[in-house]
Structure formats: structure tokens, C-alpha cells
């Protein structure tokens, strides 16, 4: 456990140190590449507020998408006709780039929270749906025969076999979606927003405030990493019987 934290910390520190040294020695102008020290100096209350806005949008959208997608997956597996009819539509929506849809969301939902949350939902929904459908079908035929010999109902089969069996698949999808959630929120903010990291990135790049831009990028990365690790931590406790990840 200790070395798992130690090694990346040391590596990260070294990268920053080299970066700092190069910028100072080569005298690179701040608008091109600011030194880490300058970026850290740019971390202020505004940045924290913008980070919080983006993080909350991403989190709400992520949670809604997770619940919706898992619910849909259960319906798809329960009623195959539904899957046959709706899955191609789902794939069509999935292949539409979120960047292309985001302006439409702003027209429909305004520049407030909802256009971002919906962008997050759109981007997070499919990995969870696809993996959950796969996971709900993953229990071996032999397990289903066992449940048949025990006289289990369809709903018992779902509750006691398919859903727990699906959890490792669900968590690996949630990990993918967690980083996508931040992307969705920032794309939504690019198109039309008055706050959030996406807004901060647009404004600071327009003003050539590269240090602020870097700080915003770092904050976005931090938000993604945090979500990823929180889910990983939860996964280890919920799916304790399953070691190793699926895709």
C-alpha cells in the first residue's frame, strides 16, 4: 500500500522539478509555459469555486446516468424485445459526438446547470449500459440451471444471481464513465456558461493567462482522478470477491 502511493508521488515530484528547472534555465516566457511555482501561485478561491461547480455537475450527471443506465440494462435483459428495438438507437446516440450536441443542449436548457448535467448524462450513459447488459448476461448457464432446480422466480434470479454477478462489470464501467463525466461537464461549459472550469479555461485562454489555464487543467485532472479513485475504493469493498478488473 505504501509503495503504491510513494512511487507515483516521487515520480510526480521529479517531473515538476525538471519542469521548474527547464523553465527557469531556458527563460521560457510565462504565456508559453509557466513554471509549476507560478501555476501554484494561481490557485485561489475562484479556482476552487469553479472546480466545485464542474465537479458537482459531473457528479450529479454521473449518478443520474449510472442509475438510468443500470435500470435500462435490467429492462433490456429482462425483455429482449426492448433490447433489440432500442439498442441500435442507443448506439446511434452514442456515436454522435457530445461536442456536436452540446450547443443544442444550451439552446434547449439554457446556460445553467442542466445543459451541463445532461451533457454528462449523455456521455456517461453508454459505457454503463453496455457493460451492465454484458454483466447481467455473464452468469454461466449452469448458474441459471442451479436456480431453476431450486425453483427460483425470474426476479429472484435477478436479485440473487444476475445483479450481484454484474457488479464487477458495473464498476469497471463506472470507472470509465467517471473520467468521461468531467469531459462532459467541461464541454457543456465551453458552449455556454458563466462559471465552472470549462468557462475558466475559455476565459483564461482568450486572455492568454496561461498560468490560470494550467491551474484549471490541473484542477480538471484532479477532479477526474478523485472520482476514479473514490469508485475504485468503493469497488474494492463492494466487489470484495472479485480480483482483477474487466476491460
Amino acid at each position, binding site marked *: 500500500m505504501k509503495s503504491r502511493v510513494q512511487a507515483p508521488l516521487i515520480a510526480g515530484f521529479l517531473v515538476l522539478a525538471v519542469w521548474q528547472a527547464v523553465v527557469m534555465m531556458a527563460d521560457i516566457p510565462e504565456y508559453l509555459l509557466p513554471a509549476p511555482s507560478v501555476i501554484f501561485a494561481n490557485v485561489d478561491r475562484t479556482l476552487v469555486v469553479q472546480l466545485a461547480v464542474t465537479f458537482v455537475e459531473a457528479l450529479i450527471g454521473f449518478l443520474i446516468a449510472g442509475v438510468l443506465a443500470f435500470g435500462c440494462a435490467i429492462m433490456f435483459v429482462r425483455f429482449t424485445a426492448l433490447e433489440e428495438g432500442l439498442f441500435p438507437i442507443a448506439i446511434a446516440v452514442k456515436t454522435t459526438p457530445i461536442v456536436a450536441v452540446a450547443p443544442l443542449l444550451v439552446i434547449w436548457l439554457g446556460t445553467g446547470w442542466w445543459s451541463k448535467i445532461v451533457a454528462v448524462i449523455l456521455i456517461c450513459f453508454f459505457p454503463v449500459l453496455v457493460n451492465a447488459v454484458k454483466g447481467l448476461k455473464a452468469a*454461466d448457464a*449452469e*448458474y441459471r*440451471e*442451479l*436456480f*431453476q*432446480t*431450486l*425453483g*427460483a*422466480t425470474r426476479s*429472484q434470479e435477478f436479485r*440473487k*444471481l444476475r445483479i*450481484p454477478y454484474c457488479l464487477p462489470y458495473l464498476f469497471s464501467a463506472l470507472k470509465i464513465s467517471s473520467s468521461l463525466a468531467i469531459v462532459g461537464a467541461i464541454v457543456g461549459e465551453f458552449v455556454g456558461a458563466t462559471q465552472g472550469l470549462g468557462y475558466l479555461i475559455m476565459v483564461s485562454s482568450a486572455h492568454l493567462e496561461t498560468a490560470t489555464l494550467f491551474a484549471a487543467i490541473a484542477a480538471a485532472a484532479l477532479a477526474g482522478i478523485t472520482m476514479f479513485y473514490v469508485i475504485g475504493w468503493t469497488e474494492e469493498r463492494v466487489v*470484495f*470477491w*472479485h480480483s482483477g478488473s474487466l476491460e
Partner: protein
Amino acid sequence: MNAITLATRLEATTLSRPEPLVSIENLQVRFDDVVAIENLNFTVGRGEFVSLLGPSGCGKSTLLKAIARLVPLASGKIVLRDPNLRVGFMFQKPLLLPWRTTLDNVLLPVEIQLGGNVVDPTDQSRARRMLNMVQLGDFIDAYPHQLSGGMQQRVALARALIGNPDVLLLDEPFGALDEFTRDVLNEELIRIWQSGDTRLHTIIMVTHSIPEAVTMSDRVIVLTGRPARLIEDIDVHCSRPRTPEESEPGLIIKRIRAMVRGGR
């Protein structure tokens, strides 16, 4: 004893069969165009341990599943003489739920029977008794991944027994285990069957091992592959416990081997 007297004895004993409990009558099972079981007739008597012996993929597992009502019959019928007969099933794989402890895995059939109701303490203590019976009393809170293959199969046996079955259907129950573990578990199965600690009286076991069939069972039904047809129904009246190395079981094993090689 030479082969001729043995054969006479085998024929003589077929006359005194116990009352039939399960009758297979003109059974045919097909999967789409493939006939898995063709015109099969035999009965299993109350209190018998019957082995269904045949090569892999000959349809013997399908036959067992047909008896458990897991596959539809194309024609013929399977009659259970006692409508209240309770049937337990055990698969080749343990099929334990990895997120459940040993105790909770054994309680799964009880939970399913109860529907939404809560498992009460009597069921809990019954599950504990079953686990003691399969020598796993000390592993009640262990998870499947913490148990060896043999131990997992013991849990599966306890789970098959908790419903208090009269008849146990076993599909190569210890076939995936190493020979040492398999011998021990086979002995335990016989011990539990003979002990009278449970209601269990009749066992139908699928196997592809001739020595296992002969050492375990009262009767060996030899099947050929595809579709499964009965080629011989052999009584094994040797005293228990038996080993394949003893002369009487040894002779029967030889006889079955010759029969199978003969390609009848």
C-alpha cells in the same frame, strides 16, 4: 469366481428389485434436429444408488436434467411414483455464489423457497448441521475463494441436502477434482447416504468412470453415445465399502470395460 458364474448371478439378482420410484418410459429428448436420447426405458428403485455410465457427451447429463425437469421431453415420460418426492441436484461445478459465505450459500435454497421471507434460526441451525455433516463446521464464515475445490464441492453437497431431498441427482459431482479428493468425497457421500441422518434414500449419479460407478452404486446403467441408448443394466451386489482393486468389483469393471470396447 469365474465370469460365467458371475454373469449368472447378475441375471438372477435382477429379479429381486425394490419397488420403482422413478420410471423412464420410451424417453426421447432432442435439441432441434439432434436426438440426444433415443427410446430409453429403465426404472430406479426406492433406496437404490444408480450410476448412469457412458462416454463424455453421450447424453447422460441430459438424461439427468430431464429427470430434474430442466429440459423438455420430445416424447415418452418420466414418472415419479411419489408426487411429494423431493429432488436435490448437484452439478459438476460447485456453482457457489462468490459473494456469499459458506453458510449463506447453503441457505440459498431455503431463501428461494421462502420468497421474500426471512430465514429463521431453525433454518440457520439446520444449515450448520449440514455443514458439520460435510466436515465444514469450522468454515461457516469463509467465502468460496478461500476454500479448496474439494471444500467448495462439500458446500455444494450441503446445499443440495438442505432441502431434505429424498432423491439426489448428481452430475459427475466430483469429476473436476483430483483423484485423492474424489475418493474421499465419494466415501463421504456413501456415508451420508447410509447414515440415515437425512431423508435421502435414492441417488442417481452420472459418471464416465467405470471404477467409480462400480464402487459407488447398486446398479450401473451403461449408455452409448449419441443418441444415448441403454446397452446394459448391471447389478452390483458386492459388500460395502468396496474398492476397485477387490476381486468382485474388479471383475465387474473388467466386464463393463470389455462391453464398452466391444462397441455394443
